[in-house]
């Protein structure tokens, strides 16, 4: 039984190769409650929380690379991400204390993962590596389950938005499961949008919504295209997704969500 807390990504990859069955832990906010409840009883834990080279937020061109243990609260404060641009996603994500510990990367391994829709709209990808291979692999942010047994997620890559909006529907505003959410971004490569919830299940991109997102008068077309991507099963659910989409459109073009 071992609790491993490597200090570098290279030593974490070596430990992963040696102990592929060890439970990987980022911030621990998902795995520790599961261990407390007896749902996980790992023989070994590989804790990435102490990686000295794992919490960097590096801007390059109009994109940014986040280390595997960048915390949600740190990302929301980061200037490299356009300070405050991602602040909107903080409303409703966990609690202030949990946000300080929870990593973005760890979220993508959870179901449901609130950040998957956000990172899909930001053209994000999950970067993986292993001690056995030279290069890195890139996976869609919704494909964390495709990680190989000897790999770790070693970073996230995403575009820096000029404008960003995120709207979610939940039974409570805070610390409650998301029923549906829409994220929209104006990126250097063009607008992008994604939706989650109902039949869409995990986050799906909404390519049909792109022309309407670029158009300040395109709120209705944007909402219709997002609803088509989400395929909500009931009239109530369709109205909810359409309302979230309209709020996002308004936030992108007018800076606030309320009509």
């Amino acid at each position, binding site marked *: *039984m071992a*609790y491993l807390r490597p200090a570098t990504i290279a030593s974490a990859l070596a430990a992963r190769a040696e102990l592929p069955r060890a439970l990987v832990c980022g911030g621990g906010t998902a795995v520790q409650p599961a261990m407390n409840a007896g749902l996980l009883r790992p023989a070994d834990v590989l804790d990435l929380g102490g990686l000295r080279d794992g919490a960097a937020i590096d801007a390059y061109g109009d994109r940014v690379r986040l280390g595997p243990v960048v915390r949600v609260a740190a990302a929301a404060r980061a200037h490299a991400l356009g300070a405050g641009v991602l602040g909107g996603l903080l409303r409703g994500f966990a609690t202030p204390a949990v946000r300080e510990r929870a990593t973005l990367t760890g979220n993508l391994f959870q179901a449901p993962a609130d950040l998957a829709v956000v990172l899909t709209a930001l053209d994000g990808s999950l970067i993986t590596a292993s001690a056995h291979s030279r290069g890195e692999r890139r996976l869609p942010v919704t494909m964390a389950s495709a990680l190989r047994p000897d790999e770790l997620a070693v970073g996230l890559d995403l575009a820096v938005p000029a404008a960003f909006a995120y709207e979610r529907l939940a039974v409570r505003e805070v610390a409650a499961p998301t029923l549906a959410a829409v994220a929209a971004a104006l990126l250097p490569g063009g607008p992008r949008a994604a939706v989650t919830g109902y039949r869409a299940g995990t986050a799906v991109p909404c390519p049909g919504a792109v022309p309407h997102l670029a158009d300040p008068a395109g709120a209705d077309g944007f909402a219709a295209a997002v609803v088509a991507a989400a395929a909500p099963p009931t009239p109530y659910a369709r109205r909810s997704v359409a309302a979230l989409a309209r709020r996002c459109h308004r936030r992108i073009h007018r800076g606030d969500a309320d009509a």
Partner: protein
Amino acid sequence: MPDDLVEVRGTLDGEPYHAEVPVWASLLDALEAAGRPLPAGCRGGQCGSCTVSLDGVPAPACVVPAGAAAGAVVETARRAALPVLVEEMAAAGATQCGYCSPGLVVALSHLLRTSPAPDAPAVREALTGHLCRCTGYEAIVTATLAAAARLTSEISSI
């Protein structure tokens, strides 16, 4: 030490502490093993009753793996509490059964240290993740704003 246990050492309220716990144990478990139990409710990061200051940042001890806290400076309300906040909470009736109080005192003391003049929405935001079944929260908000006002007047009178 049995080989199915891991050793955790750190600083608790200014004193060294030491615990031997399984790899799956939380910091909350380690503090219990070290003879310093905290109020525990959900053990899932939801209720806030076990919140400690971990290297200066509030964290529910139940979501922190014990091994992740090795070498860290842990402070409970005993050491992290701002006396002015405790006084105002007592005056406002912001503590009844007291089960939630140590955790939320850690979080609100951190708020007052990092943003000395918070408004009511900022106090409510800091209380997110702290369940109190007795007070209805209003007295806690009132006490925190009163403590903030005292801290601000102390600073401006220097």
